[in-house]
């Protein structure tokens, strides 16, 4: 039974709950890249952008192809990757270990936390001369610089992640008589893993920055050396080719961590 009055006054309730939710839009990021590149290409071709301010994207690409075909690419890339790998692996594993100790033992925390706070803000590049004396002019000082730079952010991320592990889960482990080692290995470590991996994202980006800095200050080969050389000759095409390699490296590292996250943290929604 519907009354005439209701029918006349009935209106659809307007929807106002849109937005503020996250949706996957993979292609948008790609599109932004393409649009920016097209703009640069058009600008440099038409003369709106002078070739002194920005190289033509196609020229950069051509430089890159030449770099690849001459074999120089890998001559620069392989040492860089090796430095990044060794340095970051050293720094991250030490950082996770120290972060765990700080998170687990109040004595270690009281002793090391002020130290970590003191070395965190030091620009590690400033210490490179010191590292050269300590670890030698060769690879040693570069490994040390990258390791040191990744160490502190990893420590901070790890102990914060340990602090954030659900205490009720630890209480549960104790109430079932689990050993200390079991509680750390099966409850604390997996519980801290999301925070540790989030920290690694930042640490590894810092590692790439430091890699370039180290190579700029004394290396024959490496992306940093390549960029420095191009810069001093004001060879913008080569400079940009080097920068693009670094960006791709960053994206790759981020993708690797994303893959590790999907694998290790599949228990989250």
């Amino acid at each position, binding site marked *: 039974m519907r009354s005439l009055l209701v029918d006349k006054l009935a209106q659809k309730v307007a929807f106002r709950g849109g937005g503020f939710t996250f949706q996957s839009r993979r292609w948008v990021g790609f599109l932004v890249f393409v649009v920016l590149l097209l703009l640069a290409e058009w600008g440099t071709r038409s003369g709106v952008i002078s070739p002194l301010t920005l190289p033509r994207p196609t020229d950069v690409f051509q430089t890159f192809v030449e770099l690849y075909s001459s074999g120089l690419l890998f001559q620069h890339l392989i040492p860089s990757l090796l430095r990044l790998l060794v340095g970051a692996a050293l720094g991250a594993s030490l950082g996770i270990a120290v972060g765990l100790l700080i998170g687990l033992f109040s004595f270690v925390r009281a002793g090391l936390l002020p130290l970590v706070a003191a070395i965190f803000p030091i620009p590690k590049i400033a210490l490179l001369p010191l590292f050269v004396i300590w670890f030698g002019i060769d690879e040693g000082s570069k490994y040390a610089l990258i390791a040191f730079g990744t160490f502190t952010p990893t420590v901070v991320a790890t102990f914060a992640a340990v602090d954030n592990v659900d205490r009720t*889960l630890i*209480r*549960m482990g104790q109430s*079932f*008589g689990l050993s200390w080692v079991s509680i750390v290995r*099966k*409850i604390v470590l997996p519980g801290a893993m999301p925070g540790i991996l989030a920290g690694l994202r930042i640490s590894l980006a810092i590692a790439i920055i430091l890699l370039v800095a180290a190579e700029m200050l004394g290396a024959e080969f490496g992306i940093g050396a390549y960029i420095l050389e191009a810069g001093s000759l004001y060879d913008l095409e080569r400079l940009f080719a080097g920068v693009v390699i670094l960006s791709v490296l960053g994206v790759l590292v981020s993708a690797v961590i994303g893959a590790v996250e999907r694998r290790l943290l599949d*228990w*989250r929604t």
Partner: protein
Amino acid sequence: MELRLSKVGHSYAGREVLRGIDLEVPQGQIVCIVGPSGCGKSTLLRMMGGLEVPAQGDVLQVGYPPEGCLNPLTFIFQDFALLPWRSVAGNVSLVLEDHPIGRAERREMVADVLARTRLTEFADALPRQLSGGMKQRVAIARALVVRPAVMLMDEPLSALDSQTRELLMDDLVNLWIRQPFTAVYVTHNLAEAVRLGHRIFVLSRRPGELREVIQLDKPLAERGYGDAELEVQQKHLWDLMRAEAAAADAELVGG
């Protein structure tokens, strides 16, 4: 094995929360502890399980746990406390892994307890895939697998909706009928107390003192939803607690 508390008292930062509690948990019975919020009943339970030390008095275990018992005092928590990165079977097996039990035997024990709690088909599910009631069933399975002498249940059904609560109460009753276990059941829900308790200890508001002990002789199997006899008991409990609960509610938190 029985639990005995004598003159247990406790305070947090100068605030007395428990005073002179004497109680006994006889073997094979479910003892309920009810009281207004903040009366220290959860603290009392944590003391019974060795997760906290009372400032005054003693918590004693009388006699020895039965043979084959892996964890005499076993908790069931209000928020389930399941590891989100482990499957149902993994969560149950977690508490066996520190004991010298062979892999095959462990798997058998897990399978057996999952069957008893009707979780077999969910063995590989992750906690996030389960409803609240299911999660608590997993926690119950995890508690049963270590063959506890006394189960310490801290508001185990409080995080669940009322229908799930009824279902799980039936589950607990059935488990007890099949194999009577000793349990301390802390709750603020009086309906749960009269459904599951052989004996109900009523605490006053802070500082929690023992107000009254109620003995319920009707067998668990005969108690049901909406039982008139239980309603009378529940009303009696509520009359006892009403003033206390109102006074506790009007207090400033932590003030």
